[in-house]
């Protein structure tokens, strides 16, 4: 079974973002970029499926400008066999990304597509589910455990209040939640080997998909600041403040 895994280039999660002074967007100039943490978990899961003898090939896909090749090379260093970049300098909204991925799925015919549940830049949490709708594949979103069994995959999902287990008929889509696994680090020899692995480049035109905007970003603002309050000296003082000043207990 072939496994397709998607990879998004985003701001490094350790970097504090700042809004541009003209409120047009956040400032990404000279900011460290990295693979989206949820995508790292997705890649790890795909590689583990290959190591377990369930996946025969792991194909990593990214969409965006040329620099996304860096994140695809990281995926290759982590154990993906080959990579595909759908190259475009335009803003790719989730729906467009899902349409492009649908075409890649049509070409590659994977048994399983593993994606991050959301990207830490736009926090949309939607591309995997959209791809599910477009392909007609079932989905196991927010997965904390994935077991392939014959023509089915059993997925434990993190839901409000606990866990839910679903059984999906393959081909299917899984989106990773935090506790699915702990991603490995790429070793230096594997980083070197990754440079020689195949990386194909396609364009939205090659795939026959029109890049369309369904939304307009009006502005980006910093969040309302919360002011620091006061320090209280003792538990007695705290209880007094909560009862008589804040009146919340």
């Amino acid at each position, binding site marked *: 079974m072939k496994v397709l895994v998607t990879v998004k280039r985003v701001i490094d999660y350790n970097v504090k973002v700042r*809004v541009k002074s003209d409120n047009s967007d956040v400032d990404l100039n000279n900011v460290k970029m990295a693979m989206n943490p949820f995508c790292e978990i997705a890649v790890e899961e795909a590689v583990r499926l290959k190591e377990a003898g369930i996946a025969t090939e792991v194909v990593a896909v990214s969409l965006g400008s040329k620099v996304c090749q860096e994140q695809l090379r990281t995926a290759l260093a982590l154990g993906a066999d080959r990579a595909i970049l759908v190259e475009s300098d335009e803003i790719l909204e*989730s729906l467009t990304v899902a349409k492009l991925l649908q075409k890649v799925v049509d070409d590659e015919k994977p048994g399983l597509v593993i994606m991050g549940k959301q990207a830490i830049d736009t926090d*949309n949490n939607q591309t995997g589910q*959209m791809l599910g709708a477009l392909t*007609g594949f079932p989905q196991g979103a927010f997965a904390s455990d994935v077991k392939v069994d014959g023509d089915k995959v059993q997925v434990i999902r*993190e839901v409000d209040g606990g866990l*839910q287990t*679903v059984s999906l008929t393959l081909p299917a889509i899984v989106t990773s939640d935090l506790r699915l696994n702990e991603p490995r680090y790429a070793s230096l020899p594997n980083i070197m080997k990754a440079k020689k692995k195949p990386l194909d480049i396609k364009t939205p035109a090659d795939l026959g998909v029109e890049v369309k905007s369904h939304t307009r970003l009006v502005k980006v603002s910093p969040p309302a600041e919360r002011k620091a309050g006061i320090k209280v000296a003792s538990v007695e003082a705290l*209880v007094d403040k909560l009862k008589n000043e*804040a009146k919340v207990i």
Partner: protein
Amino acid sequence: MAILVIAEHDNSELKPATLNTVAAAAQMGGDLHVLVAGAGCQSVADAAAKIQGVSQVLLAEDACYEHQLAENISLLINELGKDYTHIVAAATTSAKNFMPRVAALLDVAQISEIIRVESADTFDRPIYAGNAIATVQSLDSIKVITVRTTGFDAAAAEGGSATVRAVSMLHNAATSAFVGAEIAKSDRPELTSAQVIISGGRGMGNGENFALIEKVADKLGAAVGASRAAVDAGFVPNDMQVGQTGKIVAPDLYIAVGISGAIQHLAGMKDSKVIVAINKDEEAPIFQVADYGLVADLFEAVPQLEQQL
């Protein structure tokens, strides 16, 4: 034209998140309809009909909708949704699962987790873990929206008298099946609807020590939460996690115990009305957002707090 709100429920009870979602939808302008899709959920439809401002409740009952499987529910909403200007649901794990499928089937964008309605087509939503707020205008004729419930006060649960109309549309994709659920049973309120929350962080040291804050929670009728650090350390299960990668909460009172205040935790609770921090490190960032800070050893302060309540 009308707005379709998708009810959040467990087939027996309407969840409070639906009330906040109705309040958000009311700001978009238009007749408000509520869809209750499930199995054996007439009582939910009856409750939805009483929500202030709702004019019609659509009730779709079938075994294939019982567990809110995204594959089936999305096909149902896709068929119903074509007659609406907006399709709105609470940003719970259930709706986050099926709503993007609805959007893709309708060939429109989804605007995720809005916190404000600027106009019928323009909405504010947090991006970058709440470190920036994007104002986004939808260019689609049907707007598919999920609502961060903490951004909206609840609509009144009583006072409405909507009609309930049964819809008999069957959409069973038959590609997925519910196997089981492990829902934590607790007498305490749910995190996302609690008025008071007390959360523990890495400073708790281990899972057993959470008993200290559970005692305080019992006195306050509070829900118990945790930081991601406490979850990652294995002290407590993930469904207790408050933060960008867990639950987003905004209670009247939030008590953070042994939590340093990482950005990802603050993103999940900084809209709480009153924040209390108890931490022995006076430099901890949590004090920068706390209304009342107590620099103290939590193992002394928390039992004292319990006694004095």
